[in-house]
């Protein structure tokens, strides 16, 4: 032991920390991390609200996901229906399209009494009208004829309370009452069950107002200014020649929003084929195809 003690060199002085300063970059990095930490906390913590936890980030967001009830739910549903059925033409902003589709924002038609209002989507609207001080001479198909009372009430309420419109809401019962007073001649469910597919298809043709543009029994002749098809909405009596049933059903479902122009520099033709897919039922589509195929005149085969 003593030997070892003797051979051990005298220990050096205690080590001391060098007197260098903390590198500046660490300081900046810390501040940056703290900053991001604070921002993250601000965005994700819900500020110690015990009801806010992952995946929700704030009390507002949590409130957004709560089941809506009453008026708010109706408006949200109405907006969804609007975007799929009405928005293509009248626009998400309710402003319509110049010279083609009248606006709904600020339209006196929107503010009308409920039976008159329901009539527009239920049976369509044809001929000259005045909207917000401007003249229009157009044809709207009964785009709402296939909607449930609930859907139609929601979408009408949405239209009456959006884009600056301030009108009362419309209930499903209002729509039901208005519809009953309008559709005196429509076949009942019992009547429909007794009909052949062609007869049912004719009822579908009437229900959705196809005759407004394609003429009575699809005979055509309705003018469509500057449309390449001789400025007319096409007749339908020969569709049996040109389409398989599947092709015809697909065409009716997707419609044709852009109609080729006779004069490329002229205005957009006022009429176009609406997208019926979201509106018409699968059975109705099948029936109307059978009806349209039945329109082909006898002896009109062209030999190829």
């Amino acid at each position, binding site marked *: 032991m003593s030997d070892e003690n003797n051979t051990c060199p005298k220990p050096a002085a205690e080590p001391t920390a060098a007197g260098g300063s903390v590198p500046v970059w660490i300081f900046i990095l810390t501040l940056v991390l703290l900053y991001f930490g604070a921002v993250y906390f601000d965005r994700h913590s819900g500020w110690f609200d015990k009801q806010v936890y992952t995946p929700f980030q704030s009390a507002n967001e949590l409130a957004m996901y709560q089941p809506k009830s009453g008026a708010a739910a109706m408006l949200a549903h109405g907006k969804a229906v609007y975007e799929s059925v009405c928005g293509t033409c009248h626009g998400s902003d309710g402003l319509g399209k110049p010279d083609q589709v009248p606006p709904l924002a600020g339209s006196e038609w929107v503010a009308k009494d409920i039976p008159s209002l329901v009539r527009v989507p239920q049976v369509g609207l044809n001929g000259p009208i005045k909207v917000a001080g401007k003249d229009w001479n157009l044809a709207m198909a009964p785009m709402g004829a296939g909607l449930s009372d609930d859907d139609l009430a929601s979408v009408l309420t949405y239209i009456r309370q959006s884009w600056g419109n301030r009108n009362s809401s419309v209930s499903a019962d209002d729509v039901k009452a208005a519809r009953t007073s309008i559709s005196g001649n429509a076949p009942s469910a019992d009547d429909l069950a007794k009909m052949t597919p062609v007869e049912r298809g004719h009822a579908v043709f009437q229900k959705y107002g196809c005759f407004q543009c394609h003429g009575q029994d699809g005979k*055509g002749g309705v003018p469509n200014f500057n449309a*390449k*098809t*001789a*400025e*007319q909405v*096409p*007749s339908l009596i*020969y569709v049996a*020649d*040109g*389409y*398989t049933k599947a092709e015809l059903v*697909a065409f009716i479902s*997707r419609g044709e929003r852009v109609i*080729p122009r006779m004069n490329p520099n002229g205005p957009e033709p006022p009429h176009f084929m609406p997208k019926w897919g979201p509106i018409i039922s699968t059975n109705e589509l099948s029936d109307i195809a059978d009806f349209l195929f039945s329109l082909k005149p006898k002896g009109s085969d*062209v*030999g*190829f």
Partner: protein
Amino acid sequence: MIHWNKKILFAGLLALTITVRADDAMDAATKARIDAFEKGPATIDVSKYPQGIQDNYAIFSQKCTQCHKLSRPINSDYALPDEWSRYVKRMMRKPGSGIDSGDGKKIYEFLAYDSSVRKKALLDDKLAKLTPEEKAADEAKIKEVHDKYDGK
């Protein structure tokens, strides 16, 4: 690894695009198909076809270009007589088409004949997928056109 991530990202974006645009997918797909057809050759060398079919080609070139490029039908994926009969009638029946049933028939005959020569592989492929009755009907129509024009 990076490449894989990119692939996954693109696949994800694609899936998202398809989901969001599913509504218009039909239109977009049809439009893309037509655009692809229209980028192809705009004429057919008909010098080896019978004279009658060459005459019908002239009518086809004149009538069909009133509304669309000739490259659309030339490069389209229709080949069966049944398909051509339906599409020619569909176009012919448009108001103001200026195609009467006589011209329509000549256009149809040209297209059926041309498909049986120039699109032989596609035509055989399509025929093989038909039911026996449909196949027999289409083959009879092809034979009819060849009998009418070949060697004349």
